[in-house]
């Protein structure tokens, strides 16, 4: 290319540039649909279709193969399933409450740390978050077992003379679930707390508020939507928990997810399992909508 042609091209481009910036920014691809198509097909076939099939199967009678609502009726009326559902609700509520009660103070404390202190605390939380759930659950067997550290300490101190059973009951399951789910509460809560204008504190103090008053009347109300949102998030995650109840509950504390496993893998009642999955799915989506609503308020 000659220099002249190069120069002509550059000037042409210079003229072209302003018009390009005037165009609406995300109009670069007139139809982005083409780009989305491969994933749409993949997710459509590999994810949406299985879910739709599950929904269809929940409405099929296992024996006759005809349309029925019996699977849902079975689930709603049987006492066994009701027990598991109630237990799941109770555990999920306890876990979310404990997470809120211990997570909020930690997140609040972190906002007052030095930059290095915040990084250190975040490092612990993020590390714990990314360590395999199996590893964390496994550790609790060692910690909470009859010959575990907690029981040996309690006995050494003389608080109890025989080991307290922490494992294979709701206590152990709850402790394990709190450990796994706490980061899900801490990380968004801490992020929301950092969003709060730091100038509010000196402002409140200048107007005569004590630090307690500042917390009660300004900081806490401002972080309440975030706390509610993270509470709902942890609750949703607890509802579908499988690993921790299976291992720390030792089969004695089945939650809905473990019940689904039994219905699928032990006595094949796929249609009932499908119906329970769909109920759990609808419940999850409804709660997720609540979570999004609360999150938008923060």
């Amino acid at each position, binding site marked *: 290319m000659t220099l002249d042609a190069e120069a002509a091209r550059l000037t042409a481009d210079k003229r072209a540039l302003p018009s390009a910036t005037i165009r609406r920014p995300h109009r670069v691809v007139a139809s982005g649909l083409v780009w*989305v198509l491969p994933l749409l097909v993949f997710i459509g076939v590999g994810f949406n279709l299985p879910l739709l099939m599950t929904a269809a199967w929940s409405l099929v009678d296992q024996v006759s193969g005809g349309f029925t609502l019996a699977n849902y009726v079975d689930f709603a009326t049987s006492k066994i399933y009701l027990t598991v559902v109630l237990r799941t609700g109770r555990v999920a509520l306890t876990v979310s409450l404990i997470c809120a009660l211990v997570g909020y103070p930690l997140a609040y404390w972190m906002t007052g740390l030095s930059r290095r202190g915040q990084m250190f605390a975040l490092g612990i939380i993020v590390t714990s978050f990314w360590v395999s*759930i199996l590893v964390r659950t496994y550790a609790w067997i060692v910690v909470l077992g009859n010959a575990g550290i907690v029981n040996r300490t309690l006995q050494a101190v003389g608080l109890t003379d025989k080991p307290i059973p922490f494992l294979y009951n709701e206590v152990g399951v709850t402790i394990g679930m709190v450990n796994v789910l706490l980061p899900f509460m801490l990380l968004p809560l801490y992020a929301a707390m950092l969003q709060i204008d730091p100038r509010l504190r000196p402002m409140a103090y200048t107007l005569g508020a004590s630090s307690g008053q500042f917390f009660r009347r300004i900081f806490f109300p401002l972080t309440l939507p975030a706390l509610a949102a993270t509470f709902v998030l942890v609750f949703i995650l607890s509802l579908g928990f499988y690993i921790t109840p299976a291992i720390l509950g030792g089969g004695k504390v089945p939650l809905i997810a473990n019940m689904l496993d039994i219905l699928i893998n032990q006595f094949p009642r796929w249609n009932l399992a499908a119906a329970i999955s769909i109920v759990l799915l609808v419940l999850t989506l409804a709660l997720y909508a609540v979570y999004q609503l609360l999150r938008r308020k923060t």
Partner: protein
Amino acid sequence: MSDAAMERREASVAGSALATVAVAVLLFLALPIIIVVPMSFSSAESLRFPPPGFSLRWYESFFGDPQWIEAGINSVIIGVSSSTIALALGTIAAYGLVRGDFRGRTLLESNFIAPMVLPPVIVAVAFYIFFAKLGILGNYLALIAAHAVLATPYVVLLMSLAIRAFDIRIEQVALTLGATRIQMLTRVLLPNIVPSAAAAWLFAFVISFDEVVVTLFVSGTHLTIPKRMFNQLVLQINPTITAIATLLIGFSIVAVALAAWLTRGTNTVSGSRRS
């Protein structure tokens, strides 16, 4: 004592109570790692803490067990293939979602994120029924596809962020200078989002490598590391698991630190580019 002094005293008492609670909670979070890592080097036959002596026997028993090695190889193959599929499909889709202008974009995005949001057990039941009906339950490729579905949301989220952070005007300049769309993508956009893509791939790999519930439901006879761990944990307590757990902890920390470092790289790159 003056009111102000009293108030300060109360505040400091409240402050130290808060600090105590906070440190205790951090300790609670870190406890599994604090316990498992030293125990993996224990010489004791049973799980005892603190360990009575140092030994590498549990690492030897892991690396000497063909079933663990088989599980490890499967985990790596499934992780590499599924995260590569997720990266390819997810990145292309992220480009369409960020730069495209069509109706139902947010709806599609929610659909792509859904596998991450739904409880794994629901996805597991759905896969189980679907694969069983198709007659591919326990099929290796089906297992890879299932993992790819689960890893996709992470890629879509991370790559959307990366593409959004890349100045669209640079793309427009390339196009007005006569580059074709493909040239622009391969020579302008892609080189700039490589670190994010690497991070997204790592996240997807970790997600697949850690996945238990769906794997338990659909893998048939194929073993993966988490699946074999789960089976062993339900049956008995085997100290070999401490060694694997420690290796997994190390692996997760390295992978996530690497991913964090890589994405930090993009921010600096795009930041310096803009200035």
